[in-house]
């Protein structure tokens, strides 16, 4: 568990206030987010639910600093990031945020172990041996300890998503953001990946925000925030 997470269970890891975001160009430009305010605390799992096109993923990318809001503020661990430059947002992503995407997005030319080590190598917080040991431990914890040296192409969809979960946790981020993490998996694998995500995140005291269409998954989260037409309802 990261020391920050252990010291401040229940502390606000992520907060956004009055977020606005429009997408598209010219006449096709759509006001997707209309003043969204939200916060996520360490050790809690929050599900954002709502119909397609309501702005869930757009909000998630803003919270993950992958995109910039037109208006409003985003704080990560108390630091205002919404107006920061690309370099600061990139560094904040590497240090504080882990992502799990719907289509697992593994780098297929690399082994499972290398995929998990990738964020650690960039952050450079650990020695190479320690990185390898942590990657092995994470892959063990998602049940892939015996497949660490398999390439992404040699893993099933469920296995790839489990590697993606391990990779998202690699740098012990304060915030874990997951965009439909089970959307591409069958029922059995969905449950497995969700359990892993929530179990590991809670164990390490991370704030988990996930976007899902799956009501069963949403019900199992600590709380649910339904969205419609760019606002929480």
């Amino acid at each position, binding site marked *: 568990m990261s020391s920050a997470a252990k010291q401040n269970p229940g502390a606000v890891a992520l907060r956004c206030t009055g977020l606005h975001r429009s*997408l598209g160009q010219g006449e096709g430009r759509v006001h997707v987010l209309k003043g969204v305010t939200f916060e996520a605390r360490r050790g809690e799992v929050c599900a954002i639910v709502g119909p397609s096109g309501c702005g869930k*993923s757009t909000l998630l990318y803003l919270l993950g600093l*992958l*995109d910039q809001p037109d208006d409003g503020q985003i704080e990560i661990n108390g630091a205002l990031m919404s107006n920061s430059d690309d370099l600061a947002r*990139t*560094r904040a992503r590497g240090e504080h*945020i882990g992502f799990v995407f719907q289509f697992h*997005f593994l*780098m297929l030319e690399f082994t499972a172990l290398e995929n998990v080590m990738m964020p650690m190598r960039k952050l450079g917080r650990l020695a190479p041996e320690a990185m390898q040991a942590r990657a092995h431990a994470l892959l063990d914890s998602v049940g892939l300890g015996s497949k660490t040296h398999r390439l992404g192409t040699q893993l099933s969809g469920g296995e790839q998503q489990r590697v993606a979960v391990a990779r998202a946790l690699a740098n012990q981020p304060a915030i874990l953001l997951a*965009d439909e993490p089970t959307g591409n998996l069958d029922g059995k694998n969905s449950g497995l990946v969700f359990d892993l995500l929530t179990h590991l995140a809670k164990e390490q005291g991370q704030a988990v925000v996930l976007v899902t269409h799956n009501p069963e998954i949403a019900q199992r989260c600590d709380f649910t925030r339904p969205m419609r037409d760019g606002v929480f309802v």
Partner: protein
Amino acid sequence: MSPNLRIAYRFLTAKKRAMFMSLACTILGVGLFIVTQATTSGFEKFFTKTILGINGAIRIEDRIQDTMTSMAAAGSADFYIVNREGVKYIEGVEEPQRLAEAVREFPNVRAVSAVVRGNVQITTSFKTEDAQVFGIKLEDHVRVSDLEEQITAGDLETFRSATGGALVGRVLADRLQLAVGDSFSVAARGQSRALKVSAIFETGYREVDKANVYVLLPEARSLLRRPTGATFLQVSLHDPTRAPRDAARMKQILRHDAKPWQEREKTWLDVFRALRISTMITVSVFTLIASLAMFNTLAMIVLEKTKDIAILRSMGYERKDITQVFLWQAGIVLGIGAALGALFGYVVTWMVEQVPLSITGIFKTDHFIVVRDVNHYLAAIATAVVMVMVASLIPARRAARLEPGDIVRGTAQ
């Protein structure tokens, strides 16, 4: 291995066919650049060696005399009239001994030889030919020329010891059907005398081989009726490339016209330079193709790896990391391409050197002449580096500009 280099290597090896095309073009570009420079420079250097071996690095002749219009004002005044008609050239060197001593004071000068030259007619029982006789002091002249190496029949010892001996150019000897030991008649200024062929020389420079006859200086003075003075001083230098600068200083200090070999042979040297530049331009096309192939490969990889770029950016990889990942790919191809290209160039240069090729005229050779110069290798690699890296910058910067949010949303352009 740095994370960016590791990623670059994997991206590159995932596109094997495109990578091999870029690599092949780089190898060809670097290799052929080296081969063409080795051959064109080879002939140029051989020509330079030939003419230095015949005429030396600098030739000093004709005393310069200022006339009234170009004389400087006396004292420390800056007044000086420059007028082309203000200089008069007085033919020949009046006091060769004193001038040679002054020339030897120049630090770059290796040796000096005073030469008396005159036009003669040579007659054998076979035919008569016009020629030029050169009176030399053998000990001095072998130090300013390659005369010893140019002897193809007979020897210099006979020439040195026997009176009435002559060194005859190969072409002239063939035309007059002269062999070592044969006698011939030489006529100049209304007198004629018999000389004997001590040796036959061949420089490879046809104009020299068909006209030049060397005799000892006293013989030439007597034949040409020139008891004192010299036609010119032939000077060899430790560093012949400095000849223009040395010649200019000699001209200024000694007040004699001094011509460096670069000026004397300007026409041929310009031809070689033009040839070298034109082949360099032609061969650079291969390197240009290599850079286009690299551009194409990287542009394809950027298109195919947008999701990977998004993943890397989401994990904290900065824009400069993405740029580096793509520049590393170009760097890997360049590194391997340059090494293999240099090896390819070396091997092909060796093979070209073995090609039989008979050339006479401005030099004589029976095979391709090449020069192995590390500067050719460096120039070839530098050209490839500049072209490929410039071409790689465009896709690399494009990759770095991609917004991760746009990619995961599927709206990246």
